[in-house]
């Protein structure tokens, strides 16, 4: 369209033409995310999984199968092998005659609880520590940077093994171990962002207006951290869920009797050759959950920063 056309058209603009409304960056990001089909499907899958986890007691009531209850009469064949999927046991029974479907639903509660809670803890502490280190600099930063280096260079399994050996396995300990390692990743990202923002004009402006350091950090720096923190947090959730499943699989996580995906999979080791469902169904749920969170995280990253490459370098 040429300039003259535009000006000619401008004369004919009717009075009641809708005003052009500005879209905020969050609205733009949401619109980009809504166009990302993989991310939206993932969001849907996550919603279904959360719903299933919340409704676990309802399903237990419908089937009449408590997650811990053993049904040697109905759940096992006369030879003592677990029964396959059917109308009574929707996904079959496990080696003790417990309802696999119900156990997987209760396992989702553990996975989501550990995944979300440890990520939340890691995010809060990561933001505070990373921001303080980045903002204050000097020896505070030096000490924290070294601590993060050490934490990130140690494998979480090794630390988990030592801690479980010394303190005994429990869910709070597991959440703490996972949060501790996720915290380091979060703090490192926040620290880098804070250092980058520290020298910007708007921080200088805030300071020249007499804002204290704490106020500047929480009022001026934090809003700028939301985007990278959201992306990282979304990607930390699946990592935490895999941590939990792995620890429980190795017998270092939850009480082995508790229905958790890792424990269910560990239980299946001796039986999945005769009852492949014991391996396939919980593995599929675990994969579906982690894949959905990963796809959603990638989608959020693309939506918040359209220039970013889909596969960022680094872990």
């Amino acid at each position: 369209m040429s300039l003259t056309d535009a000006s000619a058209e401008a004369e004919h603009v009717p009075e009641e033409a809708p005003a052009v409304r500005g879209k905020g960056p969050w609205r733009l990001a949401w619109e980009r995310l809504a166009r990302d089909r993989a991310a939206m499907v993932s969001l849907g899958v996550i919603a279904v999984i959360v719903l299933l986890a919340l409704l676990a007691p309802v399903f237990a009531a419908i089937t009449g199968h408590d997650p811990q209850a053993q049904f040697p009469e109905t759940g096992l064949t006369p030879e003592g092998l677990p029964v396959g999927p059917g109308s009574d046991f929707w996904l079959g029974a496990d080696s003790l005659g417990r309802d696999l479907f119900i156990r997987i639903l209760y396992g989702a509660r553990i996975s989501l609880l550990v995944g979300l809670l440890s990520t939340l803890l890691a995010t809060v502490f990561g933001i505070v520590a990373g921001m303080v280190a980045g903002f204050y600099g000097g020896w505070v930063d030096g000490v924290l940077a070294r601590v993060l280096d050490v934490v990130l260079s140690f494998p979480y399994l090794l630390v988990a093994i030592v801690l479980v050996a010394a303190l005994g396995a429990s869910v709070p300990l597991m959440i703490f171990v996972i949060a501790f390692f996720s915290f380091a990743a979060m703090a490192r990202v926040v620290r880098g962002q804070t250092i980058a923002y520290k020298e910007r004009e708007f921080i200088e402006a805030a300071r020249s207006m007499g804002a204290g350091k704490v106020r500047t950090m929480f009022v001026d720096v934090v809003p700028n951290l939301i985007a990278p923190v959201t992306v990282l947090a979304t990607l930390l959730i699946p990592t935490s869920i895999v941590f939990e499943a792995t620890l429980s699989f190795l017998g270092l996580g939850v009480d082995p009797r508790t229905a958790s995906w890792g424990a269910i999979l560990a239980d299946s080791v001796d039986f999945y050759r005769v009852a492949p469902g014991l391996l396939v169904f919980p593995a599929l749920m675990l994969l579906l959950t982690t894949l959905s969170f990963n796809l959603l995280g990638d989608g959020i990253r693309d939506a918040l920063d359209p220039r970013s490459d889909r596969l960022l370098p680094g872990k």
Partner: protein
Amino acid sequence: MTRFIIRRVLFGVIVLWLVATTVFLLFFAGPADNVARRLAGPRAPMEVIEQIKDTLGLNRSMWEQYASFLGNLLHGDLGISFISQTPVTTLIMQSLPGTLWLVAGAAVLWMAAGITGGVISAVRPRSVLDRTTTVLVLAGISLPTFVLGMLMVYLALSVFPWTGLQPGPYISPLLDLKGFLQVMIMPWVCLAVVQAAVYVRLTRGSMLDTLGEDYIRTARAKGAPERRVTYRHGLRAALTPVVTQFGVDIGTLLGGVVVTESVFGLQGLGQLMIRSVRYGDLPVIIGAAILASAFIVVANIVVDVAYSFLDPRVRLA
């Protein structure tokens, strides 16, 4: 340069000392009876408790115990296993070959697959091949190692039994090469798949950064063939972060590939640790954990020093 190395080594020694001290406090701090009970397990009779207190000198003061703990460590004495009554160093030496072979074999596979995949993706970004790689990488990162391992064992035993692949303890290749391969191939592939996913991401990102540099344009402008630009100019520079990650990963994995070893029953260091936790065999856990930390610390020093040769700016940091 020498100062840089000395500083790194000193830092490594401090880290190891901190690890040893933390472990000591976790396991040995507290009243002697409690410590002995924890070491012996809940069902041990009173004589065993007394014997442990005696042999470990738990009745001495904390400082004396701490000093002898560190002294023994420096002499490479890690104590005696409560379960098998053999020295911890012997148990570790028995478990080490399985882990070493696992890491070495898998490393070859994942470096080859990871770098090839990353380069192909980076040279033709957004092509079908790149998108396929991206999906595979995402699947690889989302799939927990133990699930992949269990699926492999299931397939090998139930669907492809003619391959002869099976889970089992490590067999020396010098004694039985066929048996060695039958036991090792699955863990190699399993570990390599998980690791390769990370390395494809890393190589692709690093390669894309490098190929956007000015000197790459210069190389093209002076008429260097594309193949030469990609490999001699691009890949060479792009590999620096990959090599760094490789060093760190090797160190971490040598300390025990816990999950892969457990799924395939390889009886390496990682599985030794898991078994010791299950039986409450604390001397073994302590020894293996400190050894694993030492691997990690040494690998980090090697990487830092290697990096400072490749990129002199690091030395100033």
